[in-house]
């Protein structure tokens, strides 16, 4: 596991930076970070830039995270790329919705860097 290219999707630039720092602290072999402010920007980003991992908020303007995950499966470049949701929407219903839409993991805000590693590592190593 090395040279991982990750896309972080969140409408908050502060949250994108926190997630990036958590990923780098986790020692997951992150080589490149791309950022997007909503689902539509994220779809455009993955069409031109192949990534290995996507971390995505749910509540965002323009296109929310659930709709993004649904539409991602139609992007040739992104087939099979694991998506981990990072969101304040932590109810069981939201988790089920996200996993049904195609997400592979779910992290509730607030979170610690250790929790990011705990949820992302199995996804990257194919154990989730």
């Amino acid at each position: 596991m090395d040279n991982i290219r990750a896309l972080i999707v969140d409408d908050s630039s502060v949250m994108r930076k926190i997630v990036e720092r958590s990923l780098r602290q986790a020692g997951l072999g992150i080589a490149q970070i791309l950022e997007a402010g909503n689902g539509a920007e994220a779809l455009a980003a993955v069409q031109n830039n192949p990534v290995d991992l996507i971390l995505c908020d749910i509540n965002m303007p323009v296109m929310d995270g659930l709709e993004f995950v649904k539409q991602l499966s139609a992007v040739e470049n992104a087939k099979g790329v694991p998506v981990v949701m990072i969101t304040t929407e932590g109810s069981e219903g939201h988790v089920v919705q996200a996993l049904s839409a195609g997400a592979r993991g779910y992290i509730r805000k607030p979170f610690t860097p250790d929790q990011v590693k705990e949820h992302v590592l199995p996804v990257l190593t194919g154990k989730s």
Partner: protein
Amino acid sequence: MNTSNSILSTAAGRERWLPTLQLAMQEVFELMLGCALTLPSEPPPEDDLEITSMVGLAGQLCGILTVRCSVRSAARMASRMLGVDAEKAGQEMWDAVGEICNMVAGNFKNKISGMGDGCMLSVPTVITGGDYSVHSMVNENLRTVFLFEGEPVILTLEVHS
């Protein structure tokens, strides 16, 4: 910490939300900012609280959750969240306080059993300045003053229904 679903609809039950609301705020500061909020032994002066972040709640619970603090505190919050000096974090303080408010609202509703799926959150709005009035059909108002690095931060949940 979960609260019984049966208290959703009663005012008496909602009074019991205050400790849950306080816990939701304290957890956000501990996990995302790496610091503990304290409750003041006596009410601190509430001057210069010129940053107000608001998140709307709609559904089973309708209302507004707000976090108010000074510009100085907001910059320090952003500094802690980003791991940079407060001077460099200044431009990010509105986003930081908005995210804090958003996480407190989400953390709070996730702790109230049965509310998670029945209550939607708006994206946060942040207001700068203190010379404003908010008019809403408030039925109840839960309010707590915390101290963040010695300065007041006010958390309010205005319940509309």
